[in-house]
């Protein structure tokens, strides 16, 4: 995977992260109890994004299957955002 391909894949997850963070912030502001559940979900998403963000594909710090599982987890979290 080239750095450009990697960055393009990450962009989609990044947009979801911003959207979810915005939802959680609004729930927090309203003191909505639903914020807690969504915050846990967002926290996991944020951990995944931390692992993927700013990664230099030439550094070999992560194995290909690790990168693959991170993208899969990020996608799964995007698709299962709590209603």
């Amino acid at each position: 995977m080239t750095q450009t391909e990697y960055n393009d894949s990450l962009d989609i997850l990044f947009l979801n992260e911003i959207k979810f963070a915005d939802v959680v912030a609004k729930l927090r502001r309203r003191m909505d109890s639903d914020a807690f559940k969504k915050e846990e979900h967002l926290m996991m998403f944020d951990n995944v994004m931390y692992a993927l963000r700013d990664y230099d594909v030439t550094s070999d710090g992560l194995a290909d299957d690790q990168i693959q599982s991170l993208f899969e987890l990020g996608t799964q979290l995007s698709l299962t955002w709590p209603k």
Partner: protein
Amino acid sequence: MAYTAFFPSFLAQESQDAMQLKITDNSVWNGESGFTTIATVEISYYDENDVLINFDPYELIVGADATKFNEFLDRTAGHVIELSSLTIGGVAAPDRFPEGYYIIKISFSEGSYAVGTFPYFENPQAFLAKWKFMTRTMVSDLLVFPMTDEIYRINRDIFLQRIYLDMAENAADYGKVLEFKNFATLIQGVFDYYSVVDTW
């Protein structure tokens, strides 16, 4: 002639693979950077036994060759110091920058300063490239979906580990060695608890 209004400053950034260090000028030169004839980089760090290890000085201007210095002055590109070009006591340095609290000092002169009185800037930095990678692998190796009670706890621990890493970096940025060591101990404790394998 001494510099008239020189305020040395620079940025330092360790590479992700811990094999390079990029230094970029951030000084106020008053248009006098071209007078510089000596620019020496001194790097030191505390090892795991709290002993200060000094790399041998690294010259940015070698004789009439100011290529490295000119790269350093380029605020977009900066100059990249390859770890392979550094030595400690004349012996080759380790393959990667070890994790720890670093002090990077660059001193400058245009020939009029006595030795020991050169204008300089000291930049304390946390070098945590390996630990950051280990935290990335914690996410890929330990987190699964859906979230069970166990995963809930691990998720929180990883989030905290990231905060510890940020706090260690902040402590170093402010020159707080003891605070850095406290966070370094916490970070290592989390890695030990989860038996996270060293990335390199």
